């Protein structure tokens, strides 16, 4: 057991820190489009510096970083108050999925513009009637000559308005059992059959979209992993969903907690035992989720497969972020309840954390079934 970084991990971190210091991301612009352009530009700069796809193998233009180095990358990004790269779904989800399932032509065609942020990706999985029960999705793809014709509706598609490509899962066989009739497509978003409609969330921002797909056409060569294999390919994408990102979010949580400690120290609220107790509880949760995330990586590095730790981190993070942002109004005052402030945004945005990327309820089912080997529950 050694919780210090190795020499090569330290060297990686120091090199990254130096680069971040020499290349500050600059102030975050307000306004959704400006903000997105800023993050896109940020990814271009990361790419030029060789930092866009740290966890990608070198043969695909990445840095070939280890799991631990990838964690360090996201932690340092968070510590430098830098944003996530604009094409985060391409880098974390689409790229690794294409690396595993793609043909040589597909890899050559799609991977380089993901890294450079030339082509942005979105994820077309969830549907209005297929959320936790993803395999029940209804969007259909019908073969027509060399094309597939796709019709259906997708939801929670973040970044769709900026995306060139969509990781789309659709049903290609309506007679097969629900997990077997799916196929995974790389769909061009720039066509008349695809309509993007912003979905306003409780923060008031349209961070997500609905996709209305009406006879969109996808060439057969854009099938990923073969016809009828969509569930397996989709699982590859979902397995990648939380890798790395957790370390970025964990740092953000720590920064907000430090702000609350500072505020409570200045105002004297920290002398109130109830405040001190609540903040300490948040400190413990934040530290334990960081430590558990590191433990999870160590287990994978050492034993080649994940232990129970990884599945617990998202659950703990989402709960803790909600607790923290709900404590904030009591410490920073009415500002945290005033529309348009950062704290009020965080308060409202945190409510989505226990739903997005797998609800806490589904995570608990997964933990019970896969980690504790309990018999499968009736749903």
């Amino acid at each position: 057991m050694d919780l210090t970084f190795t020499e090569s991990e330290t060297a990686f971190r120091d090199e990254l820190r130096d680069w971040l210091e020499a290349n500050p991301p600059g102030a975050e612009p307000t306004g959704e489009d400006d903000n997105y352009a800023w993050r896109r530009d940020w990814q271009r700069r990361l790419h030029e510096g060789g930092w866009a796809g740290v966890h990608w193998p070198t043969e695909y233009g990445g840095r070939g970083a280890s799991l631990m180095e990838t964690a360090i990358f996201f932690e340092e990004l968070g510590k430098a108050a830098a944003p996530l790269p604009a094409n985060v779904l391409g880098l974390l989800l689409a790229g690794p999925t294409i690396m595993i399932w793609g043909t040589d032509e597909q890899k050559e065609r799609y991977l380089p513009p993901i890294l450079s942020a030339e082509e942005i990706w979105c994820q077309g999985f969830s549907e209005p009637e297929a959320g936790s029960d993803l395999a029940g999705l209804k969007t259909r793809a019908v073969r027509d000559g060399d094309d597939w014709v796709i019709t259906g509706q997708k939801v929670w598609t973040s970044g769709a308005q900026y995306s060139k490509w969509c990781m789309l899962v659709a049903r290609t066989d309506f007679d097969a059992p629900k997990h077997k009739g799916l196929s995974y497509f790389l769909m061009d978003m720039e066509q008349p059959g695809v309509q993007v409609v912003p979905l306003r969330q409780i923060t008031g921002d349209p961070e997500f979209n609905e996709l209305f797909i009406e006879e969109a056409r996808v060439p057969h060569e854009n099938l990923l992993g073969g016809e009828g294999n969509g569930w397996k390919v989709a699982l590859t994408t979902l397995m990648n969903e939380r890798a790395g990102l957790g370390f970025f979010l964990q740092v953000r949580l720590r920064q907000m907690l430090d702000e609350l400690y500072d505020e409570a120290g200045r105002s004297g609220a920290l002398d109130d035992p109830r405040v001190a107790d609540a903040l300490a509880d948040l400190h413990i949760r934040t530290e334990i989720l960081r430590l558990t995330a590191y433990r999870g990586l160590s287990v994978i590095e050492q034993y080649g497969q994940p232990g129970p730790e990884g599945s617990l981190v998202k659950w703990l993070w989402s709960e803790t972020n909600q607790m923290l942002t709900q404590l904030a109004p009591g410490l920073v005052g009415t500002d945290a309840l005033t529309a348009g402030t950062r704290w009020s945004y965080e308060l409202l945005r945190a409510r989505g954390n226990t739903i997005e990327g797998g609800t806490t309820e589904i995570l608990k089912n997964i933990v019970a079934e896969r980690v504790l080997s309990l018999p499968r529950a009736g749903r």
Partner: protein
Amino acid sequence: MRFTLSDDQNEIKRTAKDLLAARAGVAALREHAEGAKYDDALWKELCELGWPGIAIGEDHGGQGLGLVELCVLAEELGYACAAVPFLGTALAALALEAAGDTEWLPKLASGEARGALGRIGDLIPDAVDADVVVVVDGDGNASIADDVEAVDAIDSSRRYGRVNSPGATSLGDVSAGLDRALVVVAAEIVGVMQRSLDMAVEYVKERKQFGVPVGTFQSVQHKAAQMLLDTEGGRSATYFAAWTADAQPERLSSAAAMAKAWTSDRGRETTGSNIQLHGGIGFTWEADAHWWYKRAQLDAAFLGGAGEHRARISQLVGAERAGAAA
């Protein structure tokens, strides 16, 4: 970074687990706890294997290993809820080492003497019939107790005692030893939690109601998942703290408080959930879930409960933030 046990540490864990599974099963626990006596034969065996001295320096006759190794043993003994005076003896050694003692350490390492450590007025595990009981007063001053009053605690798997006043032999400040002691108690609770989780999972897979195992019910599954989160979180905090003790002692205070606060609260929750998931049978003496529930209650209060350690954390973090700002 490698946040997993080393091969040697894993070997210690495996050996301990196997030995205790063979020698300290539920039947043995019941026999000794119901008779309010220690398992002297097991204790003798553990002493011969060098367990009490695992973290005592080689110059004092110990094995000279670290707090991580000591925690591995404490966790496995908590898992078994073994009726041996290990915790008290190990904790006394940590305090006496911090006080610079040379007299007692070799005796504790060999098992020739038994020890205990605790606060004045509190219930101190393994204090009855111990050869040396270190007590700490409200100002952190330690002494060797002269008189120990035996108390029948709800946890009858070991003997608890109370000391009402400082002893004549003063030991000075042993706070570094106290922080290490907290981590070892947390490790014991992690073992207690793991056992409760394992028992609950095994039971809900077998027990049928409405024609299906109760483990297929989501409400049951979610409770079990919470037990896992609490146990693994406790394990992360505890082994982090154990590692800081020898590698980065400046971080030990905060890490130890964190481990003790989390395991104190979550240990009681998890052992209670084990009873709940057993249903009515869980509330009976025969179901044996209560041994770990009771141990968790005593451990939670021992050397300060969760609230006290959270207060300490906020003091430490608040001071650190104020220092960073200045």
